[in-house]
């Protein structure tokens, strides 16, 4: 209890310090807006719309997708993970996350603190675009939000809410922000020429691998392998997957950062790959298990979405079919494989986001043909090598970093609820509420 208080106090004092610093920063910057590049109304409208679409992915999309897959005693707690991620990561991003990711590059590793508290982030065009930097900032904010929320699928039904809150702050700061910097903020992976259109490495591999680390550190749910842990409301999950599909157009097509041809190309590739991913999963399920499941269709669609994410702006429509289909099939295999390995990644975050993201990143190196990328199948074998480097770096960094963060939290405030609380259900034990009266 004492250790928990000390950690909380430290977090609060750091927050306070940053807020004070940023107030000064903003005042110093306020009148620095002359001689700026022109702002495009169309581009700005598009990116702001897409930012809202990416928020839709997390709430209610992911909240429903995950909420339906847990037991009815944990549905509120699971949906709360997504909801509170939106709130926590948004504040972290504004205070220091954005600056660490997109501040002036320091040795390819991290951004400077120049944008602390959004100091200097205003209505002028963001470099290389015709949208205000604030629009770019909020679009990126939504990405940071969903990445943290995605991890919550691995720790569902057993993690203490207080531990999740602190984890969200630490993970967004020490894992997400550096990775976003490496790939998009002028960091070393961007320097190498790694292609990641909308976040295959930054969002999906990183959250998927973090999920594996989390599942290993937390341990299995009580009753895993012996009790019936089946989903309590698959219609929630289907609605959630469908909202993810819709919101993902913002995620991928919005990553063009302009209302242009690349956005249209990414939009089309995203839709095609999703359809192919769902069909791939359902088909292989029909062949090996005899019945095509609805959960399989939803999972396959998400697998297709994940796979096309790094490739969306770089591949043509027929390549998108292969990328999506590959995502559906590989993620199906990964999810089947999990039950043999015996770790309890409750809602298959590694199987879908980690594996789908890995396939997508490599597939980008194979199929890239438009939007400035050229892959192996179009005459540039080096791209695949670069993609492997990006994938490997993300796997190692996210796994090791997440492992350390969770071990520290486990030693200080503890990660898991008690067995009694777990059996009672987290809705009651952590929130004093029930989903269904």
């Amino acid at each position, binding site marked *: 209890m004492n250790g928990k208080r000390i950690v909380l106090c430290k977090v609060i004092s750091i927050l306070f310090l940053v807020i004070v610093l940023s107030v000064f920063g903003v005042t110093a910057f306020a009148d620095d807006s002359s001689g700026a590049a022109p702002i495009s109304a169309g581009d700005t409208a598009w990116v702001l719309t897409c930012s809202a679409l990416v928020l839709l992915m997390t709430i209610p999309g992911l909240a429903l997708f995950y909420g339906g897959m847990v037991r009815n005693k944990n549905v509120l707690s699971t949906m709360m993970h997504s909801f509170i991620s939106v709130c926590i990561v948004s504040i972290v991003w504004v205070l220091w996350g954005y600056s660490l990711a997109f501040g002036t590059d320091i040795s390819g590793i991290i951004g400077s603190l120049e944008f602390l508290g959004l100091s200097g982030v205003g209505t002028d065009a963001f470099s290389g675009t015709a949208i205000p930097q604030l629009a770019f900032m909020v679009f990126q904010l939504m990405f940071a939000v969903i990445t943290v929320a995605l991890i919550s699928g691995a720790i569902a039904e057993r993690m203490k809410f207080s531990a999740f809150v602190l984890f969200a702050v630490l993970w967004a700061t020490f894992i997400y922000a550096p990775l976003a910097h490496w790939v998009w903020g002028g960091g070393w992976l961007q320097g190498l020429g790694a292609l990641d259109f909308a976040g295959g490495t930054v969002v999906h591999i990183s959250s998927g691998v973090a999920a594996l680390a989390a599942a290993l550190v937390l341990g299995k749910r009580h009753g895993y392998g012996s009790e019936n842990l089946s989903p309590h409301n698959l219609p929630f999950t289907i609605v959630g997957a469908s909202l993810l599909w819709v919101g993902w157009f913002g995620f991928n097509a919005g990553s063009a950062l302009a209302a242009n041809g690349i956005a249209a190309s990414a939009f089309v590739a995203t839709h095609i790959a999703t359809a192919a991913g769902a069909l791939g999963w359902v088909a292989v399920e029909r062949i090996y298990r005899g019945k095509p499941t609805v*959960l399989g269709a939803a999972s396959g669609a998400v697998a297709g979405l994940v796979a096309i994410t790094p490739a969306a702006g770089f591949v043509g429509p027929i390549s998108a079919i292969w990328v999506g289909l590959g995502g559906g099939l590989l993620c199906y295999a990964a999810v089947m494989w999990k*039950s043999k390995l015996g770790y309890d990644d409750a809602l298959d975050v590694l199987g879908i986001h980690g594996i789908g993201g890995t396939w997508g990143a490599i597939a980008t190196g194979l199929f890239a043909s438009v939007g400035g990328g050229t892959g192996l199948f179009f005459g540039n074998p080096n791209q695949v090598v670069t993609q492997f480097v990006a994938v490997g770096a993300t796997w190692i960094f996210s796994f090791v970093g997440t492992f350390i963060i969770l071990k520290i939290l486990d030693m200080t405030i503890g990660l898991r609820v008690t067995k009694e609380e777990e059996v009672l259900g987290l809705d009651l034990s952590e929130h004093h509420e029930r989903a269904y009266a």
Partner: protein
Amino acid sequence: MKFIQAIIKPFKLDEVKDALIELGVQGMTVTEVKGFGRQKGHTETYRGTEYQVDFVPKIKLELAIPDNLEQKVLETIARAAKTGSIGDGKIFVSEVNTVIRIRTGESGEGAV
């Protein structure tokens, strides 16, 4: 007086109820229950994880009847609830010692 407990398939409830009302049965109590007999359960699969569900949803129908209706009621339930496949259910019959209608306080067959 007899007390009848019938475990039947849920989708047969309406047929059984209508047939019993036609016989002149005055009331009944219905509960959604789970259980298994020879039918055993079924298998569910979620992302490849298979769960054997042992307890199958059934309907428990309870009614008290005068002795003279016993044979007809048993035949009617058995006929209306029958599909011919495994899992059609069972009927249990027991003696009733006393029945009291709470509103009036009357007892015996008149209270059924």
